[in-house]
Structure formats: structure tokens, C-alpha cells
């Protein structure tokens, strides 16, 4: 295994919340040394990190890799290529593939494919229910043993309270977190956008905030006597943030995740763009007040994890009328710059905290910290991202390396970019 030396950067320690000037030496897939003016070993590849942050490899707790079943939209190979392009060294993939990841052999399939074709580490999330149908529990215990790092029916909510109570107990026994897609289904049957004035004007089915809030409230109550680690995926409603805040104040093991689009876009974009389906997400884009509440939740720690909800879709599935189009946008290549814009440039949090929300915090959520991921320690795995916080660039289709290009952020001028991604000591992406 080759040697790498990253020189001249500022090393961010997200566990301690500090940063200091230091070089990082990598050898044999491990961090060999962190310190000032490290000696340059023979045959080491040197990466100049002048003006850059040297951080633990970024971890995305919420991606869709579409394999198996929809390989034209994305594969494990193409999705992980997009990940390293954006600075991610680990991704947690959701089980809404076809067939769903709802048993141990499916988990093994993903791990094997990732081993063979992945550019970064892939950690599968197993389904809560068989076929993600919300009727009976999937083989949660076997999946955990096979390597599932969390459980979710993402794309669909675990709507039945009875099933949810059983699922919380089953997931608790594995030590993993139950990640809930919070959407009360009977309230959102033909919903394609936020229920509000814009949906009334455009006459598109409305998805009310309450459909998210009700599920969080209900699950927090169910979980009170169970105590499973519970995670709110892609939070969209300002009031949901308050519900999570209250539950955390009561000592409940509840965490929540934000996405870039719910911090930067509102439902009005659907009107101003003339029904552009690139603004169709689930949960939907909401209002300015929700953005403010989510930012506040990130600032005070209520929301402790940042994801992308990277949701690749073919162009064909987006070039149709709004009500028939698929939900979701890609995010791996653009998330870091968009988070910098929404959170750092706006003064909500600083760079070290942003790095923590994209490294150690998702590592803890998915139990990856036990493997030494999400942190930089001598002797630990050499997953490293070098970030140039001053790099200015424009998001263009050419920057998107995954199979799908479905993003409304094309043309945005942004600042901050991963310039090198190192996975297990291997340089998987470098721009300098």
C-alpha cells in the first residue's frame, strides 16, 4: 500500500471541535502520524493542502444507490464515484432497491458489490419491514449480523403503530438506530408538494407539515418505554424540529438529519420555475420559516447529522408532468458546497462544526465510530478529505459524475469544495 503525505493544511478534529496546522502521514491504509513538519518518506505521494482543511473522510448517512433494480439511474460503482467526487469516504445506502434490502443475503450482496466496484466504503441500511410493505418485520437480527448499520423503510414511513413498536424493540436489540421516513400516508395520498398557498395556486396535491410532525410525536411516545435509538430522516418542518428538541430535552435517544435542499429552497421555486420537476422532493420543499427553524436546530444541536438524500433518477422520469415525476434530487457531488453556503457563510455554524456534522456525528448514528471512522487518529483508518473552503466554482452537469443529473442547483455559484478524497489510504479523487 502506497504512502501519502498531506502537508500544509489545518487538521480538523471534530471530536474535540478544534483545528490546528499539521501534516498527516498515511501508510498501509492507516494514519501513520499527525504533526508539524513531518518527514517526507521515500516514495510518498505528497498532497499540498496549503489553505485547506484536512478532515476525517465525510460520511453520508442517507443515499440511494439504486442497485439492484434501477442501475440506469445509479449503481454502487457510479454512486460511490459521485461520493468521492464530493469528498465522501463512506455512504449509508437505503434499502428501497428492487428487490428491497430486507434480508441478510441482500445486505451481503451490497457489501460484495461495494467491495468489488465501490470507490468508497458502503454501509447498507436494512429494511424495517419485509418488502418495505409496512406489514411484518424484516429479518432485522440477521441483517445486523450481516453488516446492516441501521434500519429504515425510507421512501415509505413505518406507518402502523403496532409494527413500529415491535420494530423499535427489534432494532434496539441490535444496538443500531431506527431511521424513520416521517410521513403519515393517509394524509399524503396524492401529495406532490408542500401544502400551502403555492399548492393551492398550482393545484398540485399538498403534503401538510402535520403528516411529518404526527409521526415524530407518535414515535417519540412509543419509544419512551423502549428506548431504541431513533433518527428522523430528512427533517422538513420547523415544528418537527421543536418536537425533536423537546424529546431530546427529556433525555430520549432521538437524532435528526437535514438535507441541503431543505435549507436552500422553498416551495415557491415550483411556481417560479413553471412546474419544474427538479423541485419535486419527498418530503417537499417548504417555507422560509421552516428553513429558519431547521437552521436554528442545527445551531443548537437539535439536528446533529447532515445527509444528502442523494436520490438519482433518470431524465425520463423527470421529463413528465409534475404529478407523475419521481421524487428527489442527487446530492453527493454538491452537498459540501451547499452546506457551506447555507450554514457557514450564513454564520449558523463554523467549519469545524460543519465537519463534525458530516463526520463524527453520522459515524455515531451508524456505529461507524467503533471502526475509527468519522475521526482522525494515529493508527486509525486513513479516510481523509481535504477541503478548500475558498474554492469558488459553478455547479455544471460536467461536475456530476454519477449516472443521473437530476439537480435544481445547476448554474449555482458556490464556494468550498473537496479537493482530495482518500479512502483507506488510497487517493480516490484529487484536484490539485
Amino acid at each position: 500500500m502506497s504512502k501519502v503525505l498531506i502537508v500544509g493544511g489545518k487538521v480538523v478534529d471534530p471530536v474535540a471541535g478544534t483545528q490546528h496546522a499539521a501534516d498527516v502521514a498515511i501508510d498501509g491504509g492507516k494514519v501513520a502520524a499527525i504533526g508539524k513538519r513531518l518527514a517526507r518518506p521515500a516514495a510518498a505521494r505528497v498532497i499540498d493542502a496549503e489553505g485547506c482543511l484536512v478532515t476525517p473522510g465525510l460520511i453520508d448517512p442517507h443515499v440511494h444507490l439504486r442497485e439492484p433494480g434501477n442501475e440506469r439511474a445509479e449503481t454502487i460503482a457510479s454512486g460511490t464515484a459521485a461520493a468521492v467526487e464530493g469528498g465522501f469516504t463512506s455512504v449509508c445506502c437505503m434499502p428501497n432497491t428492487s428487490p428491497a434490502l430486507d434480508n441478510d443475503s441482500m445486505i451481503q450482496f451490497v457489501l460484495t458489490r461495494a467491495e468489488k466496484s465501490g470507490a468508497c466504503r458502503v454501509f447498507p441500511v436494512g429494511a424495517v419491514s419485509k418488502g418495505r410493505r409496512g406489514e411484518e418485520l424484516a429479518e432485522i437480527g440477521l441483517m445486523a449480523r450481516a453488516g446492516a448499520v441501521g434500519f429504515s423503510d425510507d421512501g415509505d414511513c413505518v406507518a402502523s403503530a403496532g409494527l413500529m413498536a415491535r420494530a423499535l424493540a427489534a432494532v434496539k436489540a441490535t444496538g443500531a438506530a431506527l431511521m424513520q421516513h416521517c410521513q403519515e400516508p393517509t394524509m399524503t395520498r396524492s401529495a406532490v408538494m408542500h401544502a400551502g398557498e403555492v399548492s393551492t395556486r398550482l393545484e398540485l396535491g399538498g403534503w401538510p407539515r402535520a403528516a411529518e410532525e404526527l409521526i415524530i410525536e407518535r414515535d417519540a411516545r412509543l419509544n419512551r418505554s423502549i428506548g431504541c435509538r431513533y433518527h428522523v430522516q430528512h427533517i422538513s418542518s420547523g415544528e418537527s424540529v421543536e418536537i425533536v428538541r423537546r424529546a431530546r430535552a427529556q433525555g430520549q435517544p432521538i437524532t435528526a438529519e437535514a438535507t441541503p435542499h431543505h435549507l436552500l429552497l422553498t416551495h415557491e421555486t415550483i411556481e417560479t420555475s413553471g412546474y419544474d420537476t427538479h423541485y419535486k422532493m419527498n418530503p417537499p420543499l417548504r417555507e422560509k420559516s421552516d428553513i429558519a427553524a431547521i437552521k436554528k436546530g442545527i445551531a443548537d444541536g437539535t439536528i446533529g447529522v447532515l445527509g444528502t438524500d442523494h436520490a438519482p433518477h433518470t431524465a425520463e422520469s423527470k421529463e413528465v408532468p409534475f404529478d407523475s415525476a419521481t421524487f428527489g434530487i442527487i446530492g453527493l457531488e454538491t452537498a459540501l458546497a451547499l452546506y457551506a453556503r447555507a450554514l457557514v457563510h450564513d454564520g449558523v455554524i463554523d467549519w469545524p462544526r460543519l465537519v463534525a456534522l458530516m463526520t463524527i456525528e453520522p459515524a455515531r448514528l451508524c456505529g461507524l465510530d467503533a471502526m475509527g471512522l468519522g475521526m482522525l487518529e494515529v493508527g486509525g483508518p486513513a479516510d481523509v478529505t481535504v477541503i478548500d473552503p475558498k474554492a469558488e466554482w459553478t455547479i455544471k452537469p460536467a461536475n456530476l459524475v454519477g449516472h443521473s443529473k437530476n439537480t435544481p442547483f445547476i448554474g449555482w455559484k458556490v464556494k468550498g469544495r473537496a479537493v482530495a478524497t482518500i479512502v483507506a489510504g488510497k487517493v480516490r479523487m484529487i484536484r490539485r
Partner: protein
Amino acid sequence: MGTLTRARRGSGKAGRGDDGAPWSHRHLLQLRGMSRAELRRILSKARRYEAQLSGARGLDAVNSELRGRVVANLFFEDSTRTRSSFSVAARRLGAEVIDLTSVGSSVSKGETVSDTALNIAAMGVDAMVIRHRSSGACHLVVRTLEGRRRDGGAEVAGDLSASRACSIVNAGDGRHEHPTQGLLDIYTLAHRFGRLEDFDLRGLTVAIIGDVASSRVARSDIAGMSALGARVVCVGPPGLVPEGLRSLGCDVSHDLDAVIGRVDALNVLRIQFERHEVKGSSGGENRPAASSSTAIASIREYSELYGINARRAARMRRNAIVMHPGPINRGVELTADVADSQRSMVLAQVSHGVAVRMAVLSLCVGATGRAGA
């Protein structure tokens, strides 16, 4: 994308009509967002056509404004009135009409609305009149066409080059808008209440009764009538007339009997069961029967509380009128005696529709012609 998409910049003076007000919109997608002046521009042009059509030489007065132009009707949803009305309007202007009533067959073969529209546009038609079950479908077609013209003009020479601009006229997109129906409703109001000079509807109150939530007609009526100064109140059960409609600039009431004596016109809507969510289903794909709709408890309750019958009509103002966009479900929202009474404007609406659609086609296609020159 605006209400009416502006013709491409640099198109010069597009279709200047006798009013002197310039017209620069190539497409008609919705009434929301249109100015009073723009609405009046269309309506006063319609008034001249109406005078021609109803004049002694009505049928002889064949207009040749659009001679040599081709108008294609693309109806992805069923229609009787609207499609024939657009066809008659286009022919009265001297245009040729292609009636693609079977576009459903392309859809069943898996073709998308954008592809169908691109294909028809590539044949060099001047206007497409589109009806589709999805809100925003015409916006999508406009975006696809304009995008293709912008990016592909050079490399796909001869197919959609700038010389062949095609107007898109919305003939009903999902539950969103049906702008020409809104215009003919306004025209009918103005006609009856002597407002044809300036189409100033101030002082008039219109009640839209029934399935407002599912109605594209209601959305166009609310936008257009309020822009011209009328007061609009939507009346019906909460499942069909949600409070959120107030954000469109209208009032909302669930008490028809409190409203009926205080309005100048009723626009009575059909309950569109085919657009309702079915009990116990996960989507709106299946066409529900009345008994399985989740929006109302029963037809019996609906007719009793919101149906327009002779007893209720008797409580209306002396001059007040009853409009209905058709088709009527006699006995549900409107009883036969009222539908056929002196108050009923149903047939007047239909004949005004032709004049209004002539005005729309003339203005939009006129804008296209100059734009591409």
C-alpha cells in the same frame, strides 16, 4: 415561466390589435397573473368576433386572419365542448385544424406528452391546443419546446428552428386552469350585465358552487374575475371547498342558503368524481364512482345542502344568472327546471366560447408569426 410566456425577445412588435394595446404573448397557459389590460385586450377582441358571428352575415363573414395557419388540437383527456369550440374558432379565422382526438393512443403506447407535442410541433403547426390530466402539463410542453429551440436549433436544423414558433393554448391542465373557459365565463357575465365596453366587473358578486377543489374552471374564474374587480365566493362542503382557497383572493362559504340571495351569478360546477381520491386506495389513478369518493359523504347530502333547485333559485336576485361549464349532472348539482330556465346562461356560454377562442388564437398565433419573422 410567466402566466403567458412572453414571445422571444427581439421579436419586435407582435400582433398589434385595434385597441392599440400591444400583444406579445405567444402562449396562453393561465389567467392567474394576467393584468386587467391583458384580459380586456382578449375580451374586447372577442366582442368584435361575437358581433360578426351574431350579425346578419355571420356565417358569410369568414375571416382570413389565420389563412394558411394550422392549429392542432391535442386532447389527452375527453372533451366535447372545448375541442369543438376551438375547432370552430380556428376555422372561422381561416386556419386549418388537425384534430388529434386519439392522442390517447400514443399515450397508451408509452409516449410522453412532451414527445407527442414535439412531434406535432415538428410538423410545423402554428398552435397546439392542449388538454391533459396533469396540472402544469402545458407549462412542461412550453419548457420543452423553448428549451429545444434554444439548445437544439442549430444542431437539429429544420426541425424546430426559430422560424417555426408554435403557440401553446391551455385547454385544461389537470385541476389547475382552463383559461378560455374562464374568459368565456367573464364574457358571459359582462354580456349579461352590460359591461362589454370596458369589462369592468366591479360591483358584481359571483358564487362558484360545488367541486372547487377539483376544478380548473374555478381557478381561472377566480383569477380572471377578481382581476377585473368582481367579488368571488366559493361555496360547498369543506371537502370540496377548503379554507385554503382564500389565498387565491376569494371568499369561502359552506352555507349556500346564506349566500344565494346576495349574488349576481352562480357558476355551478359538476362534482368531478373521476378526480377524487378513492376510499382505501393509495392514489387517484382509478376512477371512483360517487359512492366511493372520500370528498363527500353522499350525493344525497350534497344535493340537499348545495344542489341548485327551483326552490333555491327562487331566492336569487331578480336578474341573477346561472352558469355551468358543462357537462351537467342533472339532478345532482343542478335540477332540470333550473338548467332550462330563463336564468340559465349555459348555451350563451357555449356560443361566447367560440368568440373568445377566436380572440385567443388570433392574438397568440399573431404573436408567433411576427416573432419568427
